[in-house]
């Protein structure tokens, strides 16, 4: 026969086997198989799990929540800052999700806990604007390494079911650059309710106008309801914050102004842990009105993801490293929980239908 297989020398065989082996090794190394300590989305999931996230189809953070619907009315001032179709429309549909920040889906409402508001605003021409806002004044982390350490320190002690105070203090003590953020968090006056709270993007975004001019902003959803302090406003019902939100919506619509704080020269755009100048211009780009509430289990806001980098043309993400990180980590949380069987949410359809406060076993 012309070409029967020739017995190859070891060098020949090495030349056959080594190239695919090296490429495979390189791919495996890229997937971090050899460095289990690397900061990866699955390690963030592990840290949320250690901080109390049960899985069960819930978000790995901001796990307890309730949905609302309403609309967004943009202002001419918004139109001047961004060419986005969102600011050209009127009466655009909004889906909101009010939530408590911890990864615990069955956390009883209480005055001490941080709260959040996520929104999706859509225009008829297909613009999709997602916002994920919290009621803290500044971010208590400045970069990816901080975020990883922060959620590491949130690990629950199996005995006390609380984070280890020593670890939490060490996190702050080792990071002098977060001094202002922690001071402002301490000075922050919590409101009585979800209805009169103000929610912030913390991370910055870049607006582009018709002429291509770019403006860096931070967002806030500022409640039109008057401030009232949280002290003594609690109730003996584990869902009192959410039920009082439903009660108010049953009586009247609730409005939040969407306010852009415009960066001046020197304001740190890529560091959400640092304050901006107090004298910065504030522009109300529109108003969100909520009229209806739904349990997460009967609204698409339950399963959906409020990735803050899902933005319409005319609004883009800044180079804040936390924004890109959030996009990747939210995606992993979203993929994982979507493949799980979801347990019922703590705010049930029954709670939304009849939001009377009761002294239940969930209350503390």
């Amino acid at each position: 026969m012309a070409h029967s297989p020739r017995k190859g020398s070891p060098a020949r065989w090495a030349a056959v086997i080594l190239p695919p082996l090296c490429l495979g090794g390189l791919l495996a190394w890229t997937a971090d198989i050899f460095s289990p300590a690397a900061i990866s989305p699955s390690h963030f999931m592990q840290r949320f799990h250690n901080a109390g996230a049960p899985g069960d189809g819930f978000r790995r953070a901001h796990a307890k929540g309730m949905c609302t619907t309403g609309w967004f009315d943009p202002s001419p001032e918004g139109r001047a800052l961004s060419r986005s179709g969102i600011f050209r429309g009127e009466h655009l549909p909004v889906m909101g999700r009010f939530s408590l920040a911890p990864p615990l889906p069955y956390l009883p409402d209480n005055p001490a806990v941080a709260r959040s508001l996520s929104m999706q605003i859509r225009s008829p021409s297909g613009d999709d604007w997602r916002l994920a806002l919290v009621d803290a004044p500044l971010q208590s982390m400045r970069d990816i390494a901080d975020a990883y350490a922060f959620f590491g320190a949130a690990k629950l002690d199996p005995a006390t079911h609380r984070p280890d105070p020593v670890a939490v203090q060490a996190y702050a003590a080792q990071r002098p650059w977060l001094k202002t953020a922690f001071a402002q968090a301490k000075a922050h006056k919590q409101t009585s309710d979800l209805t009169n709270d103000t929610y912030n993007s913390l991370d910055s975004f870049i607006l582009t106008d018709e002429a291509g001019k770019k403006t860096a902003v931070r967002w806030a959803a500022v409640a039109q309801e008057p401030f009232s302090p949280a002290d003594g406003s609690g109730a003996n019902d584990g869902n009192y914050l959410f039920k009082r939100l439903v009660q108010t919506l049953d009586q009247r619509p609730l409005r939040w102004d969407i306010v852009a704080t415009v960066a001046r020269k020197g304001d740190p755009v890529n560091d959400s842990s640092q304050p901006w100048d107090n004298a910065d211009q504030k522009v109300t780009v529109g108003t969100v009105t909520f009229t209806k509430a739904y349990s997460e289990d009967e609204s698409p806001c339950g399963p959906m993801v409020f990735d803050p980098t899902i933005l319409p043309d005319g609004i883009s993400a800044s180079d804040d490293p936390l924004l890109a990180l959030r996009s990747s980590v939210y995606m992993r949380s979203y993929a994982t929980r979507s493949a799980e069987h979801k347990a019922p949410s703590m705010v049930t359809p029954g709670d939304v239908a009849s939001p009377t406060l009761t002294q239940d076993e969930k209350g503390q």
Partner: protein
Amino acid sequence: MSFPQNTGHATPFPRLSILLHWVMAVLIIVMLFVGLVMAHDSTIHYAGLFTLHRTVGFLLLLLVVIRLVNRFANHTPALPMDMPGPMKLAAHFSHILLYGFMIALPLVGWAMLSAGGYPITLWGGCHIPPLMGFHPHLWGVLRCLHSLLAYGLILLILAHIGAALLHGIIRRDGVMGSMLGR
């Protein structure tokens, strides 16, 4: 170290086939690395990599369609007469699998982002319409499938490279040369 030239005389692939093969090979390897970095490392610029991944992914989907048309429109050199039957079968079967994975991966990527409710924008701002409406559970399943297909494609590519080198270095039957244009 140098090896003697191939001694076989298989006819080479047509020029267009060779071009498509090597352009896609490079792009697919880049996609595998970019995908793995996105999914397994949180410290590397995610937004930029993700935009690159979507853009090159759709480019590859376009290229694989052109390649399939070319494959049936253009001739494909026959494998050497003396190749054992099971080896030929393995070659044909693995090529069908490679095509299947090259088509399925970008399609599943497109479908999963659609099902998850993510808008799909390519580099430069081009907007791709969703393949389906919002199906969160399907998004979870397809995201998992995208990983499994990618890992499968990696194994296929490694075997493919090994087989090509076996032809070129051990058997020296001209099969490797036919894709190098010799």
